[in-house]
Each structure stands twice: as structure tokens, then as C-alpha cells.
């Protein structure tokens, strides 16, 4: 894995051209999703209109969309930070489980604490648990050279089966008729919804986004992470300890995944089950890639895909849009984005426009 190329994928071209290419890739992916809907016998325009209506057509819809967007986007910001350091965090699912588990344990143990103490405590413990879980992959990468692409995925399954065991055994809801979940946390452990529309978790997201931006663009830590992302030689030349940056990047990524799990637990589901995340960790991965590892891009893409997930969910009753359309759109959007940014593709296009001159523009790979 050469990390230098990664940076090339992250920032190629001027801001305007990046926005245009991303929008084009998203539009193409939405069209592929529409094609799938047609194959399923639906009118794609009607179906998408129903999805849009469910996602943003009412204050309930907006609230649901934001609730979906929160875990995806908070996790995605962690994925984005790791991505800038040249690392792929495929472990969002496991980190979300780790964070939710820690948060629910805090809430069940300290249920008497007042809201202003309990909720921050849950969020902190969630972030710490996620950070530790992500840190395992960081240490394995930094000390033994194990690919984080493989270890983070394997750790997802370990986290899932551990939670699955716990919610069927030690921390199962005693009054839950045998369902695989914990009891619900007390009111004092719940993040409220402001004015019926805006979940309070949005404030957490805003703080995380500003913090992540400041870390990346205004701190020496950000400089180090990005240097590592430019490639080991660049970081070594600057004098950074690469192993420490690698561990730090995956700890931060894991912490944000864990925080996302805690926010979701406190602000929405109120209990942990072994169907707690419907795949937000992978949504977050696609979102961070589509956002090209930038904070603003990840937030924008996260809100978009949160809305899409919520809209599809809401439309189930009226138009029955399969949930998986969201994943099809995400995956193809990333593919189109790669194509739109591939040097080779750009050169091909140039060669077609200016026959005979293409070769002069060829950049060294």
C-alpha cells in the first residue's frame, strides 16, 4: 500500500473541479440506483420522489434523516482522519458496537447520576472504548506491520459476536421476554430532540467536525498525520515517528466510531442489541471516500447518505424501495469518483479532444 497515491486520490485538482466531479459521480450513481429500481419494477422517478419526500418532506422526516446521518457522519469523520494518514479504517461497525456497549454499561451502572454528568460520561466512555478497539489495529499495524484493512474487518466480527453474547447473557434485559437486547437506559441518559426536529446529537457532530478540522488543518498533529499520508519517506524526512502517528490515527478513528455508537445509543435506540448498526460503519467508509477525506466533504456526504437511508426506510410502506439501493448508490458513487479522477481517464479524454497531443500531457506516474 503506497500511501502517497492515496493523497493523490484525496486532493486532485481545484476545489470547483473537485465539487463538479463529485457531483457528477453521485448523479451517475443515483442513476444506477434508478436503473436497479426499474429492474425491480418500480418507476425510479416516483420511487426517488417518495424517498426525498420521506427524508426531508416533514419535520419528522428531517429528524429521522438527522438521526441516521449522525452515526454515519461521526464515524466517517474518523475514517476521513485515518484516510488522510494513509490508513483505511474498515472497522467502523466494531467501533460503533464498542462505543455503544461502553455507553450502555455506564448508563446501567450509574443510572442515578444527573443528565449533565451521565450523558457526557457515556459519550466519553464510548469514545474511549472505540479508541481502544481501533487502537488494537493501530498497534498491530505499527508494531507488526499487519494490514489494517484486514485487521479492522476481523475485529468487526469479534466485536459483533461479543455483543451478541453479552446481550443474550450477562446484560440481557431481564424483562425483555428473551429478546437479544439490554434494557433501555433511563431518561437521564438520553440525548433529547430539540424542538421536535433537531436531535441534540447534531451539537456533538458539530463539535466533532470543528475539532477534527482544527486538528487536521491547524495543529501539528494534523501536519504529522498528513505527512504520514504523503508516504513514509516524507514523514521520516520530517522527523516524525511513523509508528506513533499510525497508532494515533487509528485510535482517533476508533474513538469517533465509538462516540458515534454512544450518541446513537443515548439519542435514539436507548439500548444495545446485536442488530444495533445496520451497516453504518461501511456507510461511513463510503462517505469518507466520497468526501475525499475532507471534513466538509464527509459531513456533506454523511448527511446525504443519512437522508437517503432514512428516506428509503420511510418509503418502505408506500413504495417499498429496497434498503440495499443505498449501498448500490454508495459503492457505485465511489467507483465513478475513482474513474472521474483517474489520471489515465483524464488523459484519454484529452487525447480524444486533441488528437496527437495526448502524450505530451502524460504525467509521470
Amino acid at each position: 500500500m503506497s500511501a502517497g497515491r492515496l493523497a493523490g486520490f484525496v486532493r486532485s485538482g481545484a476545489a470547483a473541479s473537485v465539487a463538479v466531479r463529485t457531483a457528477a459521480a453521485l448523479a451517475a450513481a443515483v442513476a444506477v440506483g434508478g436503473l436497479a429500481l426499474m429492474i425491480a419494477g418500480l418507476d425510479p422517478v416516483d420511487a426517488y420522489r417518495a424517498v426525498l419526500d420521506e427524508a426531508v418532506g416533514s419535520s419528522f422526516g428531517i429528524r429521522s434523516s438527522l438521526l441516521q446521518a449522525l452515526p454515519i457522519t461521526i464515524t466517517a469523520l474518523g475514517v476521513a482522519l485515518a484516510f488522510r494518514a494513509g490508513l483505511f479504517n474498515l472497522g467502523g461497525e466494531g467501533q460503533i458496537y464498542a462505543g455503544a456497549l461502553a455507553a450502555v454499561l455506564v448508563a446501567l451502572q450509574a443510572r442515578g447520576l444527573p443528565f449533565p454528568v451521565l450523558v457526557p460520561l457515556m459519550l466519553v466512555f464510548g469514545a474511549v472504548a472505540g479508541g481502544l478497539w481501533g487502537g488494537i489495529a493501530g498497534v498491530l499495524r505499527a508494531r507488526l506491520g499487519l494490514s489494517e484493512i484486514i485487521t479492522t474487518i476481523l475485529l468487526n466480527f469479534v466485536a459483533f459476536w461479543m455483543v451478541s453474547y453479552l446481550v443474550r447473557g450477562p446484560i440481557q434485559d431481564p424483562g425483555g421476554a428473551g429478546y437479544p437486547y439490554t434494557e433501555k437506559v433511563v431518561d437521564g441518559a438520553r440525548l433529547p430532540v430539540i424542538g421536535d426536529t433537531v436531535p441534540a446529537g447534531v451539537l456533538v457532530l458539530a463539535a466533532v467536525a470543528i475539532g477534527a478540522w482544527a486538528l487536521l488543518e491547524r495543529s501539528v498533529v494534523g501536519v504529522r498525520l498528513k505527512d504520514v499520508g504523503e508516504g513514509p519517506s516524507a514523514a521520516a524526512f520530517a522527523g516524525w515517528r511513523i509508528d506513533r502517528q499510525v497508532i494515533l490515527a487509528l485510535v482517533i478513528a476508533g474513538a469517533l466510531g465509538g462516540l458515534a455508537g454512544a450518541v446513537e445509543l443515548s439519542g435514539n435506540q436507548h439500548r444495545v442489541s446485536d442488530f444495533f448498526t445496520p451497516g453504518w460503519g461501511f456507510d461511513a467508509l463510503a462517505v469518507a471516500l466520497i468526501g475525499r477525506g475532507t471534513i466538509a466533504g464527509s459531513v456533506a456526504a454523511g448527511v446525504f447518505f443519512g437522508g437517503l437511508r432514512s428516506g428509503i426506510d420511510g418509503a418502505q410502506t408506500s413504495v417499498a424501495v429496497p434498503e440495499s439501493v443505498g449501498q448500490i448508490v454508495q459503492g457505485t458513487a465511489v467507483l465513478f469518483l475513482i474513474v472521474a479522477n483517474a489520471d489515465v481517464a483524464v488523459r484519454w479524454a484529452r487525447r480524444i479532444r486533441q488528437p496527437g497531443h495526448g502524450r505530451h500531457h502524460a504525467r509521470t506516474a
Partner: protein
Amino acid sequence: MHALLDILTSGALYAAGIRLAVPVFLAALGELVAERGGLVNVGLEGMMLAGAFGGVLGSYLFDDPWLGVITGVVLAVVVAAIQAGVAVSLAGDQIVTGIALNIAVLGATSFMARTVWTDGNVPQVEGFDPWAVPGLSSLPGIGDVVFGQGALVYLAAALGAVLWWVLTRTDWGLRLRACGEDPRAADSLGIRVIAMRWQATLICGALAGLGGVFISLGDIFTFSDGMSGGRGFIALAIVIIARWSPSHLVPAALLFGVCEALALRAQVTSADLPYELLLALPYVLTLAVYAGLVGRTLPPAALGRPYVRR
């Protein structure tokens, strides 16, 4: 403890272990071919999933498991062709391409299952029952374990032998490895690097697809969302554990298979053991072996780097 000993000494454990090792072995074999050519194929999981879905689809539509095999392999090769088009021809980032394909295939197979079968109620289809090799299966001790398997197990073993020979003993294998070590030099010697990497990627897709078919048609004869269950990533780890050597893939895959078989058996025989923790075991073991055996590994020098002709 006594129960565990009983399980460990039963031939049925190792018979199941071989069966469960086969999908991972086939996918790892494919990955090895791709990586020897310089392409790291993170989309392996998606290709396995496409194969698992295609196997059930084909067997359902044509009422013949062998046509399921063909359907599954074809679907996986289509996924591999996208990987090759984006990551080889367009020199896009190999890892990002693979990640994107995994997500898209997870969505697409789930979507198609709901489109073909209303409400996603995937039926039971014709699969591969064990077939005892005449004569050999009655050998005392190992007869039943090794020679009482489904037809795809023998096919996997044969493919392993063939690919070992192709990679290490043929001109094509030598050229492929050149593309993985130093594509620029290979190109200057007249080897068509892009074409070689396309071939390797498609072979990888076919093998991963066959492995995927085996997950669905070799065991439970139906499809469920995401049923590849991370085996593509376990196969990625196994290639590294086996240090890019086809023959080393066998013990690495068998270790995983026996461990998974152990988890499944213990679940049935010892109700007091929490089965969820047993099911986490294959993943923990893969991590542990990966961490313990990684040592000094030498990946192909140009692994992961797209080749752009100048």
C-alpha cells in the same frame, strides 16, 4: 473439557474442517494469482458474495447445481472485470476500488435476492451432497474424512495443484510474476503488463466466485445477505500467512476451516459453552496467526501499484 476432547478426536470435525476450508482456500488461491501479478484485490469479499448469490440463483433457475456453479463464477468474474477496468486499465487506486466493489456487491446481491424472490424468501435449492470416492473412502481412519466430500472439494484440490504448476512451472506464471515484481522491466521485455494483470484479476474473480458458490451450495443450499461473512478478508490474511506460496495456502486454510468446524460442533454438542463466543473464534484465530506468523514476509515488489505505460 471432556466434551472438547471428544470433539477434537472425531473424524467428523476434520471432515467439516476440510469442507469449511475450501471457500477460503479457493479465494486465497485467486488472490495469490492477482497479487503475484501486482494487484491487491480487496474486492475479494464482494466476488465471493457474488459467487454465493449466483450459485443459488443458477441452481434455482436451471435446477442444476453445476449451472449454479457457472452462474456464480460468471457473476464474480463480472465483478472482477469492473475491478480490472478501474484499477488496472484506468490505474485507479486498487484498495479504494475493492472497498467500493464490496459495498456495491453487498447491496446488489441483497437487492437481487429481493427482486428474484419476493420479500427475500430465498428457497432451498439443489446443492452438492458428499460424494464418496469409490474405494478410497473406505480407507480406515482418513477415508471418510478426506474422500467423502462434495464434488467441489476435489475440484478445489485439483485447481490448487494446477495453479501451483502454472505459477511456478510455466512461462505464463513467470511473466505474471515479473508484472508483480517490476512491471516497467517486464514491459520493456515485451510482456503486456495490462493484459497480464487483467487475466490475473479475472482468474482471481473466477476462483473467489467458485469459493462463494461453495459457501452457498456446498453447505446450506440457500443464500442470505452478506453470507460471505468476512471470508474474503480471511483469505487476504491467509495469502500473507502463506507468504504468497500456493502450497502454504493449504495448511493455512485448513487451520481456519478446522477452527470454524470446532466452533460449529461445540455449539451443537456442548450447550453450556456460549456459541456466540465460539463463532468469534475463527476471526480471533486468524488475527492471532496473522500476528504470530507475519515475521519477515516478502510481498511482490510492485504489489498495489497501478502500472501506467509511458
